[in-house]
């Protein structure tokens, strides 16, 4: 009896892990931006780690523990490096955002609001723009008001400028140290 329970649990867990990997691969293929693909890769990696751990637990393979360490480090390094070098000119896959939450349209994605400022940037032509007549979400949205109470909290500093945000970095590192104080 307990053998049947054990085997059914193992088979069901394997099926769930395989299904989660397939669904995460779907997100990797469809994902509009490279960050969505990175999150999908993280989920695939987590499923691989869970499956490897289960294999280790149920079939006496404790020699595979360093593989778990290497996989954990691989996920960390991968997501950090990809998110470090993602830039504003990375375009999304056009039309890939449909099907998730149907009441949102393509203009909700707020792809570069300052695409006009960038002018003839190399990536600005491939950016999917909002449909004409559909770009009123910034105005019509009552929940978002960035300047509502800007004097409320204490002195929060802005985030550390990324490598490709030239409009935030107008000076060197000395200004960064000034800003924090």
């Amino acid at each position, binding site marked *: 009896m307990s053998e049947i329970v054990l085997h059914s649990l193992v088979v069901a867990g394997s099926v*769930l892990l395989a299904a989660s990997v397939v669904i995460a691969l779907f997100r990797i293929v469809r994902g509009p931006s490279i960050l969505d693909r990175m*999150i999908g890769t*993280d989920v695939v990696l*987590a499923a691989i780690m869970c499956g490897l751990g289960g294999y280790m637990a149920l079939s006496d393979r404790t020699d595979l523990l360093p593989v778990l360490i290497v996989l*954990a480090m691989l996920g960390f390094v991968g997501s950090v490096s990809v998110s470090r070098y993602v830039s504003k000119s990375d375009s999304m896959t056009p039309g890939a955002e449909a099907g998730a939450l149907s009441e949102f349209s393509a203009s909700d*994605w707020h792809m570069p609001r300052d695409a006009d400022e960038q002018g003839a940037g190399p990536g600005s032509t491939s950016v999917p723009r909002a449909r004409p007549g559909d770009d009123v979400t910034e105005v019509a949205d009552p929940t978002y008001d*960035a300047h509502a109470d800007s004097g409320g909290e204490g002195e929060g500093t802005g985030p550390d400028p990324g490598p490709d945000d030239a409009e935030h970095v107008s000076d060197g590192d000395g200004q960064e140290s000034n800003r924090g104080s």
Partner: protein
Amino acid sequence: MVLDIISAVLIFLGAVLSLAAAVGLVRFGDLLSRMHASAKPQVLGLVLVAVAIAIQFPTWATVTTLAIIISFQLVTIPVATHMVGRAGYRTKHLRRSMLYRDELAEAVDRAEAREIAWERQRGTGTDHHDG
């Protein structure tokens, strides 16, 4: 045999968390929501599987290695998630209409105002875009 079933149940729960993360990855419509969904099996699922391994092999070597793995994961996953979310915010890969509150925008506005004021005080030019 009971320990086998307990560890199998723990592994099954880890698989359920992984499937939940994958379903959330497909169903949620925002980068930040997908990050919220995908963080579950990376930490809790791995903790469950590690507990299953520790139940099966209760030796010092295995348990300490599992503790190293879990602590490494607990340290690095928030860092990686923070980096992804920050990159997504900076490259505007988020839906403003799904946010109730955007405190980072206020902080960025304050920092930019401070930067402009500092540039004017220094007198190196009023346009801070030409740096």
